């Protein structure tokens, strides 16, 4: 019997325009907790999807218990013993705990559900996990941590041999994290292997045995946690010691907007938004301000709060010297604050409609003839201007925006926002999912515009004048981009404040 439970070798996965995984390898031994690490966009999620059977690799092999895996469907992979607990929960909120645990594999007697078996088994597994809820409680009434336990309980009842935990602690409090760690140790003691994806490096030290690091879709290194310092891991995650060409950096003086103590602790209905814990910052005229933070750090949430897309509980917003209350995106846009949203397809575009409609929608009031009608000539001229200025590649103005490439779609949204002549342009992950050439063009546009946004690290250092680091709904540091390095920023992004001090002391 081989030492390894799971071996991934040379796995490559391409998406249109991007290589998400490039000859990645990973080996997980029996009853080991294996950390899978990497920055956002390093390819972790793609690898998890391939392991769980949601997607298949283009080339490379995966062996599980010595047998090569083929094109099994997700539920077949689960029967083999590979169970994934995703970051976004897959529970049905209106069903009970017991029903959720056994969904799709309900115990039956004849043709009918065997409630007694289901309840007994659910109770048993809940006790194992120290989950103190009644099996008949509806899942929506549970806390996030309890929901996570239900997901893990489901994995246990599937007789999992390998459990993949995708950022299980992202939404948990410290006490809950401790409990989860105990469960992970118990599972390990029962001979179950775990792939543990996390951004909290302290956690890796606490519960993981081995780690594998991915970077830009490639294998970057692996090792025993015991023999490696956090510093070494960070260096593996960041990788290259590339010197970036800094553009001409602005030093904005005049403050356009100031946020003071923006706080929202309640959960937003129907979303996994991160709580904001008293965030304050200044936005100066003519500068590009970068917000550095991992997924779930609260960057997007803070920007959406400023834009009026989500409301917050306390905190003040000053705009051009006056205190303002922004209750909706409409009010933000009237002030001159415009957002390029994070999710281009869900939040930005009208995919079934023309470039024309997408680009001019908020500016139509300025393109009228006879008071009521859209002046098509003016409108066409405006689109043509932006097409030239932004080098948008499109056959004509009536083409359906969903047929354009990702980069060109993003440019259409940028053009739409620029047409409003904003005073503050908020850009959330402007280059996600677009190819390198288009990335460079989007960068240049933002430089020309001098705006602010959030993005990948090298992108931030290259692009911004000033960078603010964000972690768990708090602002953890600020520095001029001239002084920033990826390592410095990443430490601010992944370590808790007290860990940072300890860390500096150690150096």
């Amino acid at each position, binding site marked *: 019997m081989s030492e390894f439970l799971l071996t991934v070798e040379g796995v490559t996965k391409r998406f249109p325009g991007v290589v998400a995984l490039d000859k990645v390898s990973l080996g997980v031994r029996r009853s080991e907790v294996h950390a899978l690490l990497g920055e956002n966009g390093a390819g972790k999620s793609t690898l998890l999807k391939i392991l769980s059977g949601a997607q298949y690799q283009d080339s490379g092999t995966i062996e599980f218990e010595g047998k090569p895996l083929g094109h099994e469907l997700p539920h077949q992979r689960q029967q083999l013993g590979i169970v994934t607990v995703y970051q976004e929960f897959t529970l049905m909120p209106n069903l009970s705990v017991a029903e959720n645990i056994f969904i799709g594999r309900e115990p039956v007697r004849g043709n009918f559900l065997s409630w007694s078996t289901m309840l007994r088994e659910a109770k048993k597994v809940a006790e194992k996990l120290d989950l103190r809820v009644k099996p008949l409680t509806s899942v929506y009434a549970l806390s996030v941590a309890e929901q996570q336990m239900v997901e893990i309980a489901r994995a246990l009842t599937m007789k999992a041999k390998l459990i993949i935990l995708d950022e299980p602690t992202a939404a948990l409090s410290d006490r809950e994290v401790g409990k989860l760690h105990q469960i992970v140790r118990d599972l390990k003691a029962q001979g179950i292997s775990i792939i543990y994806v996390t951004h909290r490096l302290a956690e890796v030290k606490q519960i993981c045995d081995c780690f594998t690091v991915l970077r830009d879709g490639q294998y970057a290194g692996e090792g025993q946690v015991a023999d490696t310092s956090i510093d070494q891991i960070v260096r593996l995650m960041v990788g290259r010691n590339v010197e970036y060409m800094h553009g001409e950096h602005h030093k904005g003086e005049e403050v356009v907007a100031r946020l003071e103590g923006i706080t929202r602790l309640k959960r937003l209905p129907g979303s996994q938004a991160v709580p904001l814990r008293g965030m304050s910052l200044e936005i100066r005229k003519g500068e590009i301000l970068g917000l550095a933070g991992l997924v779930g750090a609260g960057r997007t949430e803070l920007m959406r709060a400023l834009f009026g897309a989500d409301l917050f509980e306390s905190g003040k917003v000053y705009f051009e010297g006056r205190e303002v209350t922004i209750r909706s995106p409409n009010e933000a846009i009237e002030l001159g604050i415009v957002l390029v949203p994070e999710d281009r397809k*869900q*939040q930005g*575009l*009208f995919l079934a*409609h023309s470039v024309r409609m997408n680009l001019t*929608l908020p500016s139509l009031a300025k393109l009228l003839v006879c008071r009521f009608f859209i002046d098509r000539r003016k409108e066409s001229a405006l689109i043509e201007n932006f097409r030239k200025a932004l080098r948008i590649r499109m056959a*004509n103005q009536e083409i359906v925006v969903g047929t354009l490439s990702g980069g060109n779609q993003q440019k259409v949204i940028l053009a739409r926002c620029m047409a409003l002549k904003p005073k503050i342009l908020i850009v959330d992950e402007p280059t996600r999912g677009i190819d390198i050439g288009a990335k460079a063009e989007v960068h240049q546009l933002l430089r020309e515009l001098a705006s602010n946004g959030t993005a990948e690290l090298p992108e931030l250092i290259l692009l911004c004048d000033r960078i603010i680091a964000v972690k768990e709904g708090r602002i953890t540091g600020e520095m001029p981009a001239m002084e920033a390095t990826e390592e410095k920023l990443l430490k601010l992004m992944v370590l808790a404040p007290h860990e940072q001090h300890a860390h500096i002391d150690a150096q």
Partner: protein
Amino acid sequence: MAQTTAPIDKVVEVEKKQPFEWVAFLQKFGVFLFLILLIIFFGSQNPRFLSIRNLFNILTDVSIYGVMAVGMTLVILTGGVDLSVGAILALCAMCGAAAINGTGDTRSATPDPHKFGGLSWLIALLMCVGLGSVVGLIQGKVSTKFRIAPFIVTLGGMTVWRGATLLIGEGSPISGFDTNYCWWGSGSFLGVPVPVLLFLVVTVVGYVVLRYTPYGRHVYAVGGNAEAARLTGLRVDRIVTSVYGIMGFLAGLAGFVQSARLSSAEATAGLGFELTVIASVVIGGTSLMGGVGGIAGTVVGTLLIGVLLNGLVIMNVNPYFQQIIIGVIIVLAVGFDTYAKSRRGRK
């Protein structure tokens, strides 16, 4: 010289020559072709079908549905639906008639033609469209403010307004309007029946609003992607509420015309109209998911139903069988539309 024409669509000049795509063509014009085929078929079966008189008959018959279908197109474009239009039609007609009924006793009373100096029709008309708009706006507001699906709000509205109509009319019709009033239902202008003219006006206005005004774009945007619309700065709730207001206005207008045509306002008027109206819009290619479709398709859909009903009657088809045919056609039309879209999506 004053130029007040709407700007002309210049889509044609940028279109490139491409190999002819049958599926795409049929998706766009399929229902229209089917309408033409039906007309030819019925014409060949019975020459009476193609007489000017019968064609005007068809148009007059569909004009009441058609006026409402224009409003329903807006509603469905935002991703909603309005089930209460038949009930609003009856309520408005009844209230309009009650307003000009001088006797105070609604029961089988005949309004006095001289009471308002021959302008009683105007009072009834204003009452109809005003009340319809208010009722529609209330439904829109309830739906957006309390986040209740329009389907539910208007399902409730359907019985509420019908009940209100019965209460106001005390269960019996108000009939016997003066000739000025009845002109709106059965008169004609330059040889064209008045209801047909009204249908034409409403259609043209609806078409122009949807294609050439910011409001029209907003309606498409809200139905296409409500969250993106909100983040683009559109006041989504206000736009959604307004389409129900417009729908109510047009249902009120339809109620006025219907009562003028029958010279009677009845509590059971417009019963089941909502389904015919929704069917016209959907057959015309407007997606129930919102964001896709338009007035042109709705007009074709409305005519298709009118031609079918009229043709089947002229051919003496069993009325029970007529219903079956219409049901099958609705499913086929929408089914083909979905098929064509999935074909294109796969390429």
